[in-house]
């Protein structure tokens, strides 16, 4: 079973601040197969973006630091690579799409030039071919090549995000990390961008790590889902299992918190309390202070991931077989 493109093992990333050190990512395990889209879901401060930056080796240091773990990409541990090797990986084999298309493009450079730049950096091909490639990329994302010499401010938000996607795809990467790529966009524009991403992922067979807080977006585009809470993945399964049979109390609560469009619910079932402060994480299961099924052992021990059904992992004592017997 070595079709894993990316495998994260026991990754911990911590930040050191005035008020002490806190772990943003906590013993995280994760994998993405070739051609697969993994939805990476969680609320603010769950460690989603930090993980993404960790994969790119872009965690700002100080205050951030990768404490332990391995990030194995195409069989090699990214954390052991030197700066030069990492630079040639970034943008080439792994590229990133950021949340805000307004700030991730250089305002004083034409969009065509910006795409050319990415290609030039990583590929040794003649200049006129670079231009042809860049133009083709623009057309791939649905922008006429006549707009090659336009500046970012001449594009609308949705169009800019297309340009960003074109840049990300320019070197035909194996993995794209998309950090909330549609959050800043309007619903109808989001629909356009999602359609485009679906199309492109089929066409290029690229793996995508899609960071989002919107389970609706996940349902649209992802194959697998990992639910993050306080720096670790508490549930991982393919989309069908996760959506039809969510197991972790937090995942269940998350689904219940979203107002449904087709059912009339008078009152939403909520998760009580607030997400934990990363600098004061609770002992044991991080979710126990908010959990409706909290048990004694949850307060002391951190539950390990258990494979409840094939390919469906959950970190919760509720699904520990011995516990079930005790009850």
């Amino acid at each position, binding site marked *: 079973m070595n079709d894993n493109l990316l495998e994260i093992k026991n990754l911990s990333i911590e930040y050191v601040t005035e008020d002490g050190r806190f772990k943003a990512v906590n013993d995280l395990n994760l994998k993405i197969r070739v051609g697969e889209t993994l939805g990476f879901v969680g*609320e*603010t401060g769950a460690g989603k973006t930090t993980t993404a930056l960790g994969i790119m080796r872009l965690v700002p240091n100080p205050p951030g630091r990768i404490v332990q773990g391995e990030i194995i990409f195409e069989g090699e541990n990214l954390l052991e690579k030197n700066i030069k090797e990492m630079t040639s990986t970034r943008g080439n084999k792994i590229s990133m799409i950021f949340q805000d298309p307004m700030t991730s493009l250089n305002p004083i450079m034409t969009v065509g030039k910006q795409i050319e730049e990415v290609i030039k950096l990583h590929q040794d091909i003649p200049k006129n071919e670079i231009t042809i490639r860049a133009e083709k990329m623009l057309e791939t994302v649905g922008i006429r090549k006549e707009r090659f010499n336009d500046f970012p401010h001449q594009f*609308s*938000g*949705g*169009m800019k995000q297309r340009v960003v996607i074109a840049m990300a795809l320019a070197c035909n990467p194996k993995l794209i990390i998309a950090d909330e790529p549609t959050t800043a966009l*309007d*619903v*109808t*524009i*989001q*629909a*356009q961008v*999602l*359609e485009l991403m679906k199309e492109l992922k089929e066409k290029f067979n690229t793996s995508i790590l899609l960071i989002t*807080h*919107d*389970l*609706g*977006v*996940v*349902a*649209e585009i992802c194959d697998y889902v990992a639910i993050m809470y306080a720096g670790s993945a508490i549930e991982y399964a393919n*989309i*069908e299992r*996760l*959506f*039809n049979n969510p197991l972790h109390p937090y995942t269940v*609560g*998350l*689904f*219940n*918190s*979203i*107002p*449904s*469009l*087709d059912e*009339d*619910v008078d*009152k*939403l*079932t*909520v*998760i*009580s309390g*607030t*997400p934990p*402060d990363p600098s004061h994480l609770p002992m044991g299961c991080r979710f126990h202070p908010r959990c409706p099924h909290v048990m004694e052992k949850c307060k002391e021990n951190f539950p390990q991931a258990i494979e409840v059904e094939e390919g469906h992992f959950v970190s919760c004592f509720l699904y520990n077989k011995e516990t079930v017997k005790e009850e």
Partner: protein
Amino acid sequence: MSDVLMEVKNLKKYFNTKQGMLHAVDDVSFKIFKGETLGLVGESGCGKSTTGRAILRLHEPTSGEVYFNSENILNYNKTQMKAMRKKLQIVFQDPYSSLNPRLSVYDLIADSLYVNKDVVSKNEIGEQISYVMDLVGLEKRLVNSFPHELDGGRRQRIGIARALILNPEFIVLDEPVSALDVSIQAQVLNLLDELQNELGLTYMFVAHNLSVVKHISDRIAVMYLGKIVELTDYKNIFADPLHPYTQALLSAIPIPKYGLERKRIVLEGDVPSPINPPPGCVFYGRCRERMDICKEVSPKLDVKKENHFVACHLYNGIDQN
């Protein structure tokens, strides 16, 4: 539910920009009944927030009439308006920028009382703050904290407490939950619901998230480029959307369910600029069902079915009256 609390007639709000006249709100009329929640949805720049602010005169409307309890508050002078502000409150989107970072929770909530000195005597202020903090579920120990020490959900509760302390009748909720995490968002939505039942409040809920709007509203108005294109009961909007824009908007919402087969209407292009818009229907450029008349004549918002207002020439033949 037949008492009209607020009636807005031909409200316009234009901004003078360098490129020309920006029609943020362009001839909008609607009613809000006592005790109901009117949802106002649309994409960014459609004028929904400006509408909310214009009816409270936080942005002075360019023209139109806003009747509150049958009185046109646009004719009010400064003193009358100040008295009226107690009844008309607003909760803002961003719980970070809407709270003065230099004030403690106590001062933030009490500020409205300080401003309207006649409302309450000084020694009652503490009691009233305690009361509204209870109402919105804020722990009393936080009363002397500063906003930057609190999380988004608590900050938004302060924003709600601040609006409630003047004992208002009507509250504009301007995207009150869109900056919050999903789990916190649900808590705040439930709170708003409870407060409405308990205090008999009337809401105008402005948001871009249709599922949230649907959950909380009794009736929903859909805005596009400064105009209301459809207004009806919350059930109708989803069961029987009439305007092509509403249909596209609904189909664009990602639904968190697996294996849902949906027909998606993907709209071409972007929302056009609201600066000096051409005559005719605002949706003309992106509409799949556009006709010749749409380019020339701007459709009026009319009753086309029971309690169902639409501004679209497709329904020209149908007339309720």
